[in-house]
């Protein structure tokens, strides 16, 4: 296993990589529900300020031929997007008043 999951210039995000480089919406949403708001906030803060740089980095490669580390970075971005409303709007992991509701993602684009 490589020492680092992310491209070198994103070494500052490495502490979040093992937990949040998740390939599917189902994994990301599950991780969101299972993480404390304190940890979500820290993760969000760390990644959101690097979002534009991360997109620019990934966009150096064709979508269907991204190197492993760039793909991990993209999945990390997706996770940040997934938790963004927890931080920016809801103030909690779950959408308020949706105790009984679910919405499962069956098909999604890859990557």
């Amino acid at each position, binding site marked *: 296993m490589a020492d680092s999951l992310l491209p070198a210039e994103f070494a500052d995000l490495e502490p979040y990589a093992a937990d949040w480089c998740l390939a599917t919406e189902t994994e990301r*949403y599950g991780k969101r529900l299972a993480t404390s708001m304190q940890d979500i906030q820290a993760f969000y803060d760390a990644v959101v300020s690097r979002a534009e740089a991360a997109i620019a980095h990934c966009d150096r490669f064709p*979508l269907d031929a991204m190197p492993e580390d760039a793909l991990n970075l993209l999945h990390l971005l997706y996770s940040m997007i997934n938790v963004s409303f927890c931080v920016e709007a809801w103030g909690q992991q779950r959408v*308020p008043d*949706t105790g*009984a509701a679910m*919405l499962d*993602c069956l098909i999604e684009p890859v990557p």
Partner: protein
Amino acid sequence: MARWPKPAEGSWTEHYPEIGTGLISFEDSVSPEFYELEREAIFRRAWLNVGRVEQLPRKGSYFTKEVRVARTSVVVVRDGGGGVRAFFNVCRHRGNKLVWDEFPGEETSGFCRQFTCKYHGWRYGLDGALNFVQQEGEFFDLDKEDFGLVPVHCEVWAGFIFVNLAREPEQSLHDFLGPMVTALDGYPFDKMTEWYVFRADNRSNWKIFADAFQEYYHVPALHPQQVPIEVRTPGSGFECAHFQLDGPHRVVSTGGARRWTLPPEYMYPIERATRSGLVGPWESPEIGEPPPGLNPGRIDPWGIDNFQIFPNLEILIYRGWYLLYRYWPTSHNTHHFEAMLCFQPATTVQERVEHEVAAVVFKEFALQDAGMLTGTQTALESGVLDRFPLNDQEVLVRHFHKVVADWVADYQKNHAEV
């Protein structure tokens, strides 16, 4: 406070006098008896959208659709000539379910050269013909010609595959869809092949959930977070720009300044960082001249069109992408919900991220609707109230329940005569 002109009659509702302005009942959404009527009167009579042609990319591609409200399963297949056909998913030998994997109640899809029954191995061609019978000589006067799969009426409009479970449909698909919907002909749905598909099993009548997606009156109260708190105006309403009815179908268009043209504080940070959000990507690749059916009220600036195609299909057309919902009843107070977000395939990571943001934000707010409607259903079922007022912004809710009632009444009338 009216920002958009209303018809000469003074309201959208009165523009269509047949739908009335009185209180309405939601008995149609809580009654098991009414649900029994809907099975025959609606779901075995209307054209039902079961999928898109992109789900059948080549000869032998197939998918199954469980239509529980009609107590049936349909297999849809791309035949040897490249056409789309549908059959009841039942083997002619002893009635086994023909196409399924692992769980007979679950939908499946795939590719095959022929359909083989799991039970005794009878085989059917992509055209439904019975091609092989194990130990055929043991049967008595069995003519394979007479034992092909039972066809289901199947027609395609704009790449949307519809089936009709009636023995003889009362109308062709084109006539059923009518001029308002078919005026969308030519819209490049076929270019929007990057899909997110979501599903949910919701604890409400199918119409109760559809109601929440055919009016925007609820947006300020249920979804105040669609506007960041710093710029939220308490007490502000939501007014749609255009409503139109055509036969059993409906459309509502929104209008007004596009979200991303507003000052930055009207967007969430994630929206500004990714140039996407509540209403999707700020920019999508050009799709050329729109068909006349798009933005039928010629609203400027136009927001989205929300087409409600009877009985259980909804297509929301955004700028360069669309969103599709289907509501499949599973009992009088439950339904299976399907949602698809369909984008033009991303060619860059930036575009992919825009789509991802749109899908994530869609889920946040759709969950808000879904979270609430179990409450609507249980409260309606308490039977405390039986008449409810609807305002002009809820004109499509009024029309929907009227059409459902009309179809049921029509069926009962014809049935009584027979």
